[in-house]
């Protein structure tokens, strides 16, 4: 029987598609399959691929011609408070990015011409928050651009028009003082994101929302309901959360998510008895149900604000083993079997540390803990900003090297007993304060290293006076792209670390550079704009940093 095409049939089909919320295939559409099999020309999610490599397979721009790189266009988000911290995403030649105050833009990737913008009306409560007004990225998929907001909502925009598809309130921001600042991760029909809460007397959670309508599919409380893990009522104020973006292994159907530190950040002795699960841990969650499959707590009873919520979890296979490489804020890198969470190795990115004597690479035991307590101020390395901040490294599967940054800075911590404040709204719950210090016998500094991600073996390093806080990009063209605090973005030879090109963007770098291609032409996009809570710690050592200009601009480079 031959099928007959009728208007009624077409309308019925469209209605069915609408009801099922199935986006039609076509340009600017990124469904689940496009996130699994990423087009080499695209950068469709925060870390580009589910394995969090932040590696572009594009090689048109390479070692031999990068010297000819020049500005193709610049876009300015117009709001520069706390700079530009995000990593853009690109699908089918359109670049999507988010700036401070949750301003979202869709631009022609070749010309920078604005296709649409979306400026949300944010609740004034955001002006009372510690974590604001920055955002680290959007997720794109199923025809939508999705992001968490400063006032605790999740918003989905139509990818083509920028019109609001749905907006849901997930967090009671006026009560919890918590919000969303990290980029969500789309897995199948859900979008997953975690909240801020590590410095707040609340219970931080990770959420999965249905992309079709924003309905919450599941939520995972990072504060385990366990009196052995949280003595007394300390778990009520336990902090945690999962503020940055996780990874995904489709074969195992597991999402890997790092969790933040317990609150209070510092423990005066009896603030939170127990190991404080699941804070400062890596979680393996079933993305369909939110069920915990395994966990690995990197820092049992974290005494230093060395959370696991930051940065990437590399999904890496080597010698027949399915590995997960995750950096903790302490500067130690934990290598896990990602099928079961068993520890395979631990190695330090930092040269200077005294918070532990060492970590047993077989058992993970923290040996010789140096925990600040009430009384005498404690000298601790690395500082509260971490051996590395939340910025990500980049793994190049061709060189087998992970390009990653480190901060060699110490601090003096003064612990002070504090009563958690939850009414009328949650107040900061640090349990002490700290001031940055130079390491013993030398000046504080930072470095960009090329390392084997499993063994930690170092191939090359580049040092910086001011510890870098921008993410790293590596490409199949044999390049490593990275911007510093002073506002210079550089291209390095991935094999040797030799500087091949640089450009002064005028403001420092905190976001994530990416690469993409439109109509056969490769581009490198670099968010520039100095801002960050972490920068508030710098002037104690480098007063001139207080005068480094803030900014916000997306620089896009191509060959002449």
């Amino acid at each position, binding site marked *: 029987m031959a099928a007959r095409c009728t208007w009624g049939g077409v309308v019925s089909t469209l209605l069915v598609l609408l009801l099922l919320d199935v986006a039609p295939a076509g340009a600017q559409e990124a469904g689940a399959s496009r996130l699994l099999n990423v087009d080499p020309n695209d950068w469709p999610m925060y870390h580009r691929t589910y394995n969090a490599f932040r590696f572009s397979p594009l090689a048109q721009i390479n070692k031999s011609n990068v010297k000819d790189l020049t500005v193709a266009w610049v876009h300015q988000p117009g709001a520069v408070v706390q700079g530009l911290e995000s990593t853009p995403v690109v699908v089918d030649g359109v670049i999507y990015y988010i700036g401070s105050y949750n301003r979202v833009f869709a631009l022609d990737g070749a010309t920078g011409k604005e296709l649409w913008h979306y400026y949300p009306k944010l609740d004034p409560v955001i*002006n*009372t*928050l510690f974590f604001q007004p920055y955002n680290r990225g959007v997720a794109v998929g199923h025809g939508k651009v999705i992001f968490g907001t400063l006032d605790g909502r999740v918003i989905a925009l139509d990818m083509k028009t920028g019109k609001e598809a749905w907006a849901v309130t997930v967090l009671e921001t006026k009560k919890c003082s918590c919000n969303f600042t990290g980029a969500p991760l789309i897995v199948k029909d859900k979008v997953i994101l975690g909240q801020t809460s590590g410095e707040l007397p609340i219970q931080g959670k990770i959420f999965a929302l249905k992309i079709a309508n924003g309905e919450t599919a599941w939520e995972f409380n990072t504060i385990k309901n366990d009196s052995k893990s949280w003595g007394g009522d300390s778990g009520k104020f336990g902090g945690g959360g999962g503020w940055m973006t996780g990874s995904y292994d489709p074969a195992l159907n597991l999402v890997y998510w790092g969790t933040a530190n317990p609150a209070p950040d510092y423990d005066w002795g009896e603030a939170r008895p127990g190991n404080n699960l699941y804070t400062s841990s890596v979680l393996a969650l079933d993305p369909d149900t939110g069920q915990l499959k395994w966990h690995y707590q990197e820092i049992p009873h974290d005494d230093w604000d060395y959370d696991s919520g930051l940065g990437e979890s590399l999904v890496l296979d080597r010698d027949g083993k399915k590995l997960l490489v995750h950096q903790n804020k302490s500067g130690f890198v934990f290598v896990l079997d990602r099928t079961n969470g068993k520890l395979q190795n631990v190695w330090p990115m930092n040269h200077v540390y005294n918070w532990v004597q060492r970590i047993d690479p077989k058992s993970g035991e923290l040996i010789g803990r140096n925990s600040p307590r009430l009384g005498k101020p404690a000298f601790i390395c690395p500082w509260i900003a971490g051996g590395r901040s939340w910025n990500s490294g980049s793994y190049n599967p061709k060189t087998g090297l992970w390009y990653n940054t480190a901060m060699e800075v110490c601090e003096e911590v003064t612990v002070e007993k504090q009563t958690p404040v939850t009414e009328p709204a949650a107040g900061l719950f640090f349990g002490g304060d700290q001031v940055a210090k130079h390491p013993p016998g030398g000046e504080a500094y930072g470095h960009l290293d090329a390392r084997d991600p499993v063994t930690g073996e170092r191939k090359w390093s580049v040092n910086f006076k001011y510890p870098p806080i921008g993410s790293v990009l590596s490409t199949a063209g044999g390049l490593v792209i990275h911007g510093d605090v002073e506002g210079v973005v550089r291209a390095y030879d991935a094999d040797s670390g030799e500087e091949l090109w640089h450009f002064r963007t005028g403001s420092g770098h905190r976001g994530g550079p990416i690469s993409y291609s439109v109509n056969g032409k490769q581009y490198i996009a670099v968010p520039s704009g100095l801002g960050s809570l972490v920068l*508030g710690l710098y*002037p104690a050592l480098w007063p001139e940093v207080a005068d480094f200009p803030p900014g916000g601009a997306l620089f896009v480079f191509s060959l002449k």
Partner: protein
Amino acid sequence: MGNRVVRVASLALLLVAGVVTPRAAAQAMRQPPPMPTEPPFDLSDKAVIQAGSHLFRQTCTGYCHGAEGRLSRAPALRGREFDTRYLYQRIAYGFPPMPAFQTLLAPEDIWKLVAYIKSLQGVKE
């Protein structure tokens, strides 16, 4: 009283209409306290200054202001003369990215912070 009845009735209507969720409604009902015109205690009182110092360490230092009012990305507070009312307003209402504390701290606590910052006026460095 009449206005309150109208507000509650309006809220109930919005809830029935599904415009405002109960969670959002609870949030909308919180109001910041009115700004006091005068400090409730002597700002040069040592106990008040000490309490302000304690609050400053717990609320303002580290990522924001430098220890004991030293330079950070925020300006140094040591050795500077500030108008009392200006300080109160700045703490209460904030200035991005500095948060507004009017709904987080009681007016008395804001005055304690004012007392502490004013005590740094004569500090060299």
